[in-house]
């Protein structure tokens, strides 16, 4: 009687299951456990085997993985929010208001906002851990620099998203930030040296052509700014950050995996 197979075992041996998960059944032998990582497009971000300290939370703090996981949470919650949000001055605020007032138990906006804060903190702590373990040292120098770019992109993603609710908190925070762009050396209308970029009496850098204008799409925060930040937040920056993340993850493996004492 014991050779009678239960439903799970029969599914695991069927053609469909085996075609999806090569190797079939729960990975029990050492070989199967190695193959399960090698055969999965998602799991094979990992090596097959790791030094034992690499699975300890007290060493890794799990902050790199968590940063990536929060990025996924933010992508999913962000896509859902995009269904209900229109990036125009007329609708932006009321759409957010609707999300707050009209959706029973609606927490998608909260997940997205607090997730964004959490990602900033997770990325910072990941960098902290990498520094404390000296993991930026050869051969991982370049990947550290890629990580710095990812940090900057994370902050920019959070910054562009900050404007979208179009409330007082949003526009004045962005006003403080974008005014800085107007002071960019040479390229900002109020920046040092901008008056040098001129031919005769014609200034190239004016309030209608400087770095701030390029950032907010106008002389004042308005419709163009909202659309610009929306596109950067939903498409532009995620696109760029994904490229750098791919390089970052690839280089972890190529630089010899997690850092270890020599």
């Amino acid at each position, binding site marked *: 009687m014991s050779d009678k197979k239960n439903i799970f075992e029969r599914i695991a041996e069927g053609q469909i299951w085996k075609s999806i998960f090569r190797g079939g059944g729960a990975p029990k032998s050492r070989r199967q456990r190695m193959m399960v990582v090698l055969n999965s497009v998602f799991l094979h971000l990992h090596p097959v085997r790791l030094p*034992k300290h690499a699975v300890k939370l007290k060493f890794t703090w*799990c902050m790199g993985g968590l940063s990536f996981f929060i990025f996924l949470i933010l992508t999913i919650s962000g896509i859902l929010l995009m269904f209900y949000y229109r990036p125009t001055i007329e609708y932006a605020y009321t759409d957010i208001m609707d999300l707050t007032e009209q959706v029973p138990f609606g927490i998608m906006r909260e997940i997205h906002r607090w997730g964004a*804060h959490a990602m900033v*903190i997770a990325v910072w702590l990941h960098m902290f851990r990498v520094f404390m373990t*000296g993991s930026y040292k*050869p051969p991982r*120098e370049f990947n550290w620099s890629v990580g710095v770019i990812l940090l900057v992109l994370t902050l920019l993603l959070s910054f562009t998203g900050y404007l979208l609710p179009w*409330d007082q908190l949003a526009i004045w925070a962005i006003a403080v930030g974008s005014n800085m762009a107007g002071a960019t050396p040479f390229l900002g209308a109020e920046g040092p040296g901008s008056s*040098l970029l001129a031919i005769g009496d014609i200034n190239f850098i004016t309030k209608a052509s400087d770095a701030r204008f390029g950032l907010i799409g106008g002389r004042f925060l308005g419709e163009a700014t909202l659309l610009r930040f929306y596109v950067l937040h939903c498409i532009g920056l995620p696109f760029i950050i994904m490229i750098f993340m791919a390089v970052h993850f690839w280089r972890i493996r190529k630089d010899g995996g997690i850092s270890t004492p020599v």
Partner: protein
Amino acid sequence: MDAFKSLINYVSNPTILFTAVLVGFPFVFPPTNWFYKVHKKLGIDKLWTKKGLIIMVAITVAFFIFGLGDDNFKKIVLKPDNVPISGLIILLIFFTWLSLSQAYKNDKLIDEGKPVDEYYEAPNDKVLVWPDLVYVELISLILFSAFMLIWSIGLPAPLEEPANPSESPNPAKAPWYFLGLQEMLVYFDPWYAGVVLPTFIIIGLMAIPYIDTDPNGSGYYSYKNRMLSLSIYLFGWLVLWNVLIVIGTFLRGPNWGFFGPFEYWDSHRLEALTNVNLSEIIYIKWLNMGLPSNILLREAPGLLIMFLTFAVTPPLLARTALKSFYERLGSTRYTIFVVLMIFGVLLPVKMYLRWFFNLKYIISMPEFFFNF
């Protein structure tokens, strides 16, 4: 209670708070052997024991609980967007402790000639990703998701009045992670605090592995062998970044004036604006003459100081105090390192010049929007 509150209000004034942090820092995170010896002698290394952690967290939590009884404190700390910063403070204490407790343990092992905690013998000490890593990842993922859900249900995201470009709030603050930079706006003009300084921070961070070329200490926590680089990094990260964020968030009220944590944010309080430029101090106050009309002559003192700082100091240090550095790093690395360090040191220097001499600008050329 009120006496305690006003004491806290008094000592959290940036002048006192920052000075205390500045003086205490090298003894807590010693950069050199001398500081390290004092650090050990004073028993500050006990901070990185379990007892130390309990005491540090208990004091912080007790302070927050005590503070929440105060209306002014509560109003600022419980502002939805400020909540993550309170979390960050606790996380910073915990993770600083976590890394340094392991570092000190490894330091001891190294002293005894034993292999560090993370040492493993390939390939015997390797574990399989499935299941050893995958289940750790799965559990972290589930726990974090649960945490996110609780956080999101418990704390509604802020939504203030609809945007109104004609009515600016006082104070208008950038998102919290940029408040350290906004705090720097008190001491520097936007072109520097908002554009050049962040650029230097990014370049400086990216340059770390190309400047700190010592291959030792990779892949495990340690302190003693990497004292200087760790101390510099921790100073930048904990003090110049995070302490300034905390000051900018919790202690800066209307008109970006300083307010203690238990102080009411009075928007009618006036700040005396009596800051003067270096050129005014020299020509008007000391030499008793008017400002020269020639810009270069007028700003000559400031330009001279900047020239001395950036062109004379690095080669001077290369021949004296930092001679061994210069020999080890070579001229390119050394120059980049020292110039970045000078820019870093200029931040606190300018802060103190403002506090003690009301100095506004070392170089002031409003004609070219160039003030430093």
